[in-house]
């Protein structure tokens, strides 16, 4: 009996396993912060030891932090301006992308009609539309919204269509047995069943939205996050420029996190 037990439990030193249990969360924190700390250390070192003259391309973390705090009101204005482009573009892309994607994905005829076009139109890099959109639409804001919309639309459309197309036969059977058809079928069955796909598409679409937003702002904006970075780069004010980059990264991360939270709540039924 005792010999069997000793073969099952590893030979542990007394007290060691307790220490280990305590150390595990600390180790996790250390693992998660390792690259952050290395990056920060590299930044400190670069700012301090690289010989860059009077207007350093690599401002030190302290200088950047001061610039960030100083620029916060301006960055907040920029955020509002950027979001007044991003949100309408992304929202429109979501609504139209989901609606048309579900409709096309659940109808073989619509698929035959739309896919030959979508296969060619979707891969066109949306950035190439920017100059034309600016030329053709009356305001910069409208053209930027349009470009964000184009960038976010295709991934959302394609994922929604895939979600509707791959709807499991059992849900289709179940819906047919209940006599669910048309709008009710789309709303009660196809839409919820396709939600995991739709959220994947929206995450990709949101990422594209930020890229296109900041690129579009380089072309003709007089406010906004991308514009902020470009503006201070033009004046060689690198502390503010770096602060703008970090701030934009944070805003993007927060927006992605919000979408992730919404997804988590909406898909509670997916195990």
């Amino acid at each position, binding site marked *: 009996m005792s010999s069997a037990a000793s073969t099952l439990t590893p030979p542990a030193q007394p007290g060691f396993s307790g220490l280990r249990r305590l150390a595990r969360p600390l180790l996790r924190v250390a693992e998660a912060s390792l690259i952050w700390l290395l990056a920060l250390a590299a930044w400190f070192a670069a700012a301090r030891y690289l010989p860059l003259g009077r207007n350093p391309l690599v401002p030190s973390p302290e200088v950047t932090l001061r610039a960030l705090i100083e620029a916060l009101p301006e960055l907040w204005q920029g955020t509002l301006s950027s979001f007044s482009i991003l949100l309408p573009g992304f929202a429109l892309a979501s609504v139209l992308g989901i609606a048309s994607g579900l409709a096309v994905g659940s109808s073989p005829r619509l698929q035959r009609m739309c896919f030959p076009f979508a296969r060619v139109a979707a891969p066109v890099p949306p950035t190439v539309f920017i100059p034309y959109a600016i030329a053709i639409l009356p305001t910069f804001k409208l053209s930027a919204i349009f470009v964000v919309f184009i960038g976010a639309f295709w991934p959302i459309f394609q994922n929604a269509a895939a979600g509707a197309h791959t709807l499991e036969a059992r*849900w289709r059977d179940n819906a*047919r*047995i*209940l*006599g669910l058809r048309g709008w009710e079928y789309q709303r*009660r069955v196809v839409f*919820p069943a396709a939600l995991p796909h739709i959220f994947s598409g929206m995450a990709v679409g949101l990422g594209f939205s930020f890229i296109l937003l900041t690129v579009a702002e380089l072309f003709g904006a007089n406010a906004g996050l991308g514009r902020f970075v470009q503006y201070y780069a033009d004046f060689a004010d690198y502390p503010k420029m770096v602060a703008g980059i970090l701030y934009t990264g944070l805003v993007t991360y927060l927006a992605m996190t919000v979408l992730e939270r919404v997804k988590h709540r909406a898909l509670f*039924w997916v*195990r």
Partner: protein
Amino acid sequence: MSQGLILEGVHFAYGNTPILDNIQLNLPPGQFVSLLGASGSGKSTLLRLIAGLQPAGRGRLFWAGRPIKGPGLDRGVVFQDYALFPWMSVVDNLALAIGKARPDTRAAERSEAARQALRRVGLEDALDKYPFELSGGMRQRAAIARALAVGSPLLLLDEPFGALDPVNRARLQDVLLEVWEAATPKTTVVFVTHDVDEALYLGQRVVILGSTPGRVIADLNVPFSGHRDRRALFASSDFQQLREQIAETLAEDTLRQLTPA
């Protein structure tokens, strides 16, 4: 024409593979029939044809004097494990079905009818839960409750208890029999299974399908249906004799396939 379920010379094939061959069946209304067969006998396919989920290759199907052309709420279906949409609570699942069966009802009435049906199968504690929060047995109870709530006069069950452990399986068999016996007029039931005991315990009649392609190889009346005592029944010589007979019929059919024609 009788008002029950009538199948006349029903054939079905996937491509060149025959699945069902010349099925003739006449079920009077209110009868509880077990459709017994090995896997590959096409019993689930036959159920899908009756449900209207697939059209028959040849032959005709009638329910209540009308030809079956597609799915309809006059025929309820319970599958093995997916009668409920996972994104709706149990009550909402039932309320949706009730709303389709009785479009003139208000939302509150639907939800009340759903709750009532769930109470009848012993699910009063799970009303507002989601399917993923329920055990397999509870999910199948809810599926039966949905069929009850819709009130379809023909109930089609495709191995509904196939994924359950023996204890839950026996319990749900009794739940099914109870609600079937309580209803007037009686619901016509087609219960697909590959379990001989289950077929005999539940059915008033057992229709046996042979394999490849599926066709009716036996059609027996169950003399002891309506019993309540499972243990006494399974021990009785009548039961064991019939059980032997069915097992032999199935074994013969299997042998016939193994011997080259």
